[in-house]
């Protein structure tokens, strides 16, 4: 009798010892003469429980976690491989509250399948969207994406269908699909999870994008900080080629599509789409002026779709289940679901895919379980290093692009970093400027110079030098950066700075009344 055991191969699970656990289980099974079949699946995203093992049983998969090397002996003694009781047993995986409360569309397969097993992917509805798309006219594919209400999940939230329509409508001998996989925002890891744990869904989404706009070449611009994702993607692309999902006459149609991964080189700015295109062309990642939009003149001057990993990975399910199915989730103009990433100082961190509309409080306390240190949560930064710090008073806001915009905050790529009450918000504000100074491409003055001047002004305020004057100067400088920068790097760095200043003036040594001036 052979038992099936799942051990995640996701890099966060590995960062907590999943490989060592897998190795020990293999050895122990050999010495006890138990026939185990170990499958390296993706992570379900319940990172506080990783490494989390699963065992296949008649009732479904049973989970155990977090498993350390010291637990292996007792797990075998308890015959965990048959799904039997053990202090680490979490019950049926799908019934774990944290997972059960989610609405997983883009992440439907993540953690369930073996990432690079194409048969496993096909068995779990893989390539169904592509098979439908191949029967449609390009315009009909674009319409389906437009009707779904999908907006760019990279952070800018531009309607994906409209972008595709623009590229579709421009006549050109050559067009490109570029996947922005330069996931540089701190507190975000959903792109990484898709690429490591369900790479075929991204490949499928890119093929569909190619079909829709008439592009035959795709690039995945992948950040160099993700060596595991690079290996998985290259292997998946090779397998997709062998199975005629990539290459010539895909699935017997007239459509050809080539795909390759380009490794980035550690520049945050290259997550900005025009800077990314410059980098792909083999240049310094300097931001371009817009217009022309990349949709009209993009890579090598040709019409180019530049989409984030999550946007592209969501396309297959939209084509498979229909635009309406997707659009029925969410609220207002934020349709569908968002893969939310809980990070920082929280008890239960991980990936939560939910329809738009959930509040920060539910995320931080019900899902997140409050701070890891047990202290009150003072602020949460949503949407990466360019996102505002949100104070406790605003935790009841629903997660929705428009609601956040009203208070000068952003949903961005859906990353949430929690801070407990030991954080000094003036230090965080200073760090925002510091990060901008390190990562600015240098093309425009407000970003290049403003970031360094910003640090200096904060230092002066903190040292009590001309406080009133310098606070005014800080606000003035921020306004210049917002209005005068070429892209979001300089244009949004003031968001975290000003939010820290407005909501936590005491951390700057400022009198509360003064901050309202």
């Amino acid at each position, binding site marked *: 009798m052979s038992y099936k055991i799942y051990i995640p191969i996701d890099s966060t699970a590995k960062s907590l010892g999943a490989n060592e656990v897998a190795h020990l289980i293999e050895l122990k099974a050999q010495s006890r003469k138990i026939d185990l079949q170990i499958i390296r699946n993706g992570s379900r995203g319940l990172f*506080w429980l990783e490494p989390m093992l699963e065992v296949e049983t008649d009732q479904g998969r049973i989970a155990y976690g977090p498993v350390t090397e010291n637990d292996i002996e007792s797990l075998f003694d308890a015959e965990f491989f048959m799904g039997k009781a053990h202090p680490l047993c979490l019950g049926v995986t799908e019934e774990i509250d944290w997972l059960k409360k989610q609405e997983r569309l883009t992440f439907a397969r993540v953690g369930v399948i073996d990432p690079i097993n194409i048969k496993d992917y096909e068995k779990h509805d893989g390539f169904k969207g592509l098979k439908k798309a191949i029967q449609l006219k390009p315009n009909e594919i674009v319409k389906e994406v437009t009707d779904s209400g999908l907006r760019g999940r990279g952070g800018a939230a531009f309607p994906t269908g409209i972008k595709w329509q623009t590229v579709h409508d421009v006549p050109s001998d050559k067009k490109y699909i570029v996947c922005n996989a330069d*996931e540089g925002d701190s507190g975000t890891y959903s792109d990484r999870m898709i690429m490591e744990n369900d790479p075929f869904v991204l490949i499928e989404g890119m093929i569909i994008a190619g079909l829709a706009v008439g592009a035959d070449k795709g690039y995945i611009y992948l950040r*160099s*900080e993700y060596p595991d994702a690079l290996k998985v993607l290259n292997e998946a692309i090779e397998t997709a080629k062998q199975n005629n999902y990539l290459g010539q006459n895909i699935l017997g149609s007239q459509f050809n599509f080539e795909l390759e991964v380009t490794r*980035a080189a550690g520049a945050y700015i290259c997550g900005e789409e025009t800077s990314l295109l410059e980098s792909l062309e083999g240049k310094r990642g300097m931001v371009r002026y817009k217009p022309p939009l990349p949709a009209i003149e993009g890579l090598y001057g040709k019409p180019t779709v530049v989409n984030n990993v999550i946007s592209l990975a969501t396309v297959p399910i939209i084509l498979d289940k229909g635009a309406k199915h997707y659009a029925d989730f969410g609220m207002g103009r934020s349709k569908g679901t968002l893969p939310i990433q*809980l990070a920082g*100082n929280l008890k239960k961190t991980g990936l939560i895919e939910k329809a738009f509309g959930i509040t920060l409080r539910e995320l931080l306390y019900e899902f997140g379980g409050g701070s890891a240190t047990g202290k009150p949560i003072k602020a949460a930064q949503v949407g990466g290093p360019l996102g505002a710090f949100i104070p406790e008073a605003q935790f009841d806001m629903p997660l929705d692009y428009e609601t956040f915009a009203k208070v000068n905050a952003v949903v961005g790529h859906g990353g949430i*970093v929690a*801070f407990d009450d030991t954080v000094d918000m003036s230090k965080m504000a200073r760090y925002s400027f510091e990060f901008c100074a390190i990562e600015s*491409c240098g093309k425009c003055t407000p970003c290049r110079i403003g970031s360094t001047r910003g640090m200096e002004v904060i230092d002066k305020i903190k040292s009590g030098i001309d406080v009133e004057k310098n606070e005014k100067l800080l606000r003035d400088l921020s306004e210049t950066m917002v209005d005068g920068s070429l892209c979001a790097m300089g244009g949004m760095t003031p968001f975290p700075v000003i939010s820290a200043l407005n909501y936590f003036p005491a951390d700057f040594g400022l009198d509360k009344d003064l901050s309202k001036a």
Partner: protein
Amino acid sequence: MTVSKKELDKVSECIERFKDKPGALLPLMHAIQDNIGYIPEDCYPQIAKAYNHSVAEVHGFVTFYHHFRRHPAGKNVLQICRAESCQSMGSEALEAHCKQTLGIDYHQTSEDNLITLEPIYCLGNCACSPAVMINDQVIGRVTKEKINNLIKKLK
């Protein structure tokens, strides 16, 4: 520092490999660095000539990207995440500990050439902060003890 003949041969091989590739500089520089550990300035003229760039353009390209090094690193590269999520879990104390233990600052190599210390801005391991990367391996929920053991193991 002068480049060895063996290194130069490797660079020439890489230059040849990407000659017909559009946007070749990124994969080329990665290939050079993967092969010999850094991108020697002495090779800029050769690269410039092969790809029809100026030497200044090659220099500008290499220096723009944090990932590319102009000098060889130590035997191991330890990167400490400085981004917000890791800060919220005490990465500042961790970086101070590393600097003190190794007796070096960022972008420096320990005297025994064992470890080069680098800052990094997000490893995508924010669910298990603070995080570090040693060569290609990410480690989560790092404590001072974990770092000490890691350094001991490398010795």
